[in-house]
């Protein structure tokens, strides 16, 4: 069970990294519009007319 001595700190570090990533995303406005981009990526075709 000594592996826990590695895994538990690792999980803490991972959680903190995820938290930091989330911080960056929220403060950059990634969550301001949750629906629009999903549609936009589907709509963005450049076929000539």
């Amino acid at each position, binding site marked *: 069970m000594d592996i826990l001595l590695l895994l*538990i700190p690792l999980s803490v570090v991972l959680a903190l990294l995820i*938290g930091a990533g989330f911080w960056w995303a*929220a*403060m950059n406005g990634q*969550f301001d*519009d949750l629906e629009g981009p999903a*549609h936009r990526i589907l*709509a*963005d*075709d450049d076929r000539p007319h």
Partner: protein
Amino acid sequence: MRRKSAAYDAAHCFHCGEPNPARMHWRATMDDVQAVFCCAGCLAVAQTIGAAGLSSFYALRERDSVPRRDDGVGDAAASEAVAGPTRPELADDGMASVALLLDGIRCGACVWLIESFLQQQPGVLGATVNYATRRAQLRFDPNETTLSAVLAAASRIGYRAYPYDPRRRERMARRESRRLLLRTSLALLATMQVMMFAVPAYVSVDGVDREHAALLNLASLILSLPVMLYCAAPFFVNALRDLQRLRPGMDVPIALGIGAAFTSSAWATFTGTGAVYFDSVTMFIALVLAARLLELRVREKAGDALELIARDTLLMADRLDAHPGGKVCERVIAASVPIGSFVRIAAGAPVPVDGIVVEGRSSVEESILTGESWPHSKAVGDRVMAGSVNRDSPLTVEVTSTGSATMLAALSRLVERAANERPRLAKLSDRAATAFVVALIAIAAVGAGVWWFIDSSRVLPVVFAVLVVSCPCALSLATPAALAASAGALGRRQILCVRPDTIEALSRVTDVVLDKTGTLTTGDVRLTGVTSCGSMDADRCKSIAAALEAGASHPIARALADAARDGSVVARDVVAVPGCGVEGTLDGVRYRLGRPQWVGELCRAPVPMHEVAANEISIALGSESAWLAWLRFGDTLRPSAAALVASLRDMGLRVSMLSGDREATVRHVAAALGIDDWRASASPDDKRAYVGALQAQGAIVAIVGDGINDAAALARADLSIALGNAATLTQWTADAVVLGSDLARIAFALRAARQTFRVIRQNIGWAIGYNVIAIPLAACDLLSPLAAAVGMSVSSLVVVGNAWRLSRLGRSDDVTDRTNRARHVADSDLRTAVASIT
């Protein structure tokens, strides 16, 4: 998403999906499809979209997504007028940027269409639309184009855009909302991980190894620390402020509880003795934050919708050419009236400008400005303010100040009121929760005292078990969450709760009083029927009548133009004879449309027999040779009126109808809708007295109305609901505003409110039952702190989950199903009703 071309049928308009008229005149090839349109407006919008190479919009959009048809006239001017005070900001590179509020967005394809189309406009550097908030950020080169040109472009493809000033307050609100989202999510993330660290202690039989337990506790501490310091910071800040003001609110017990639990857990972690409660602490913080986030989102949405209404109801002023003795020379946007000129304010109209009364005497209601609903009487020399409402008789006012500033200030008060007030019930449950927490601390103290004498080593576990096992969530979390969730569900159905206590009032309603004109009926004159009395078929008669009236703009001409969209028939030599009708020539034949006697002079035949229902007027159409037809006009029932009455009945509500209209008319409508209890020729005072009489019998009365005449009754009723297209006044005094004309929404609102209160009662029942059992158990040391933490967490999840169910109201099938069934029933009723009227 589906391809429109595959599903397209020629019976419906390619653009808006409305049924096409029998003769299809508007055709175009769109994307290799022969498209047919219902009117020239739709054709123009579709061609603009097609010419811009954006016709794949039609393939991408969702079913009901229709950009508004181009209203054309006035829009650009109106936008420009609003744009006046909102000058675009100039960036360092000389480019202008402006925030826009968009109306008409219904699905993601609209976002794409607007962005692509605006970016094609000359001088536009960038356009980004936020689908969630219906707002756009536009960047353009002010040397190449103007804001109004861009706004006009948006209106050409059927969307209205209003320049919008993202005030400082709003920017701060957005930052606040982002922070709350971040706090909630980080707390949830930490909760998940801390829970995982706590699982070994919950599931192991002989206990976790000492060394592993220490490591798990330390890991939990590290993850809980940011939650305590960042996520929970608002609780501590608010608690401190509350204590300074000596007015403890909900945040004080929260701060105390999490502070104490965290400190003791940290202490236990370092000393290696005692229990840790990191999982309970983080979960509690996450749940409370989640409930607050939900509430904030709902309030933001309600505020946005109200702001849009405010922008949509641009104030217009009737300017006089001279005073005294002047007449109305032009109708202009209030902001552009020159100071010192004179405007006429009709009875019932909102006052468009600040000014001084120079003629007339009336009472003016200033509730929007002062909150006082009693009207003030105004005479010559008195000051009137923009945003108040002139009630009794026309006034002439000399303008002292104009600009949207005054009006917008007033309207933003309404928006703020809706956004910032907490419902009475939420306040009540806050107070109850505070009392609950105080009582709880007392119980914990007593328990500690008792256990001190029995077994001093058990004091700490018992106190914590008592503090942790109790769950005030039903009061502090679930009630606000339930109210917010149902307000959100109502908002999605375009029902705006203007006052904070609206949902509570809705749930208690026993009687619904409906206004007739403008509520159950559309309030416009419509062509209700054509009876042919010669050889010519009714449709042809309708086309001829429409052609004769094509140049006119009175209500009957408009009704004819709406009814006969076929514009191919053209009349020549049209002469309007005042008081009689119109005369004109089509294909060499002279026709007359108007008063029977006058038409009879042309036909040289006696007036044929016909019957006119009480609520209709009829005019005759004849040619040189024969009588052709009777055209009947009337106020038509809204299609959803019968559905509303039926579903209100189903809910066990008493339904009555009030109208200022003639008795015969009201009797017809009442019979058509199956309303037994009705009053005709009711004056405003009668209506108010009627509502008062119902209340005297113990009824909780909701009144649905629109007209100025309803204001007194609306104010008297326990709950007032205004239709969104109703006169401005009632919107301002109403508790709830229903946008659009679908009356079924009113029944939905009542049903949703009842459901909300059922859920709140369930939650409180659950919480009382749970706490009554759990707290004594914990106080008697029959519950380990571990079990207490699990019990509390499960209990909060139950109540919050139960409240969350409400946000799905109106999406869930059973509600829609019931509505649909009611609508189906109503449709057949309506057909009978229409048959009985016509």
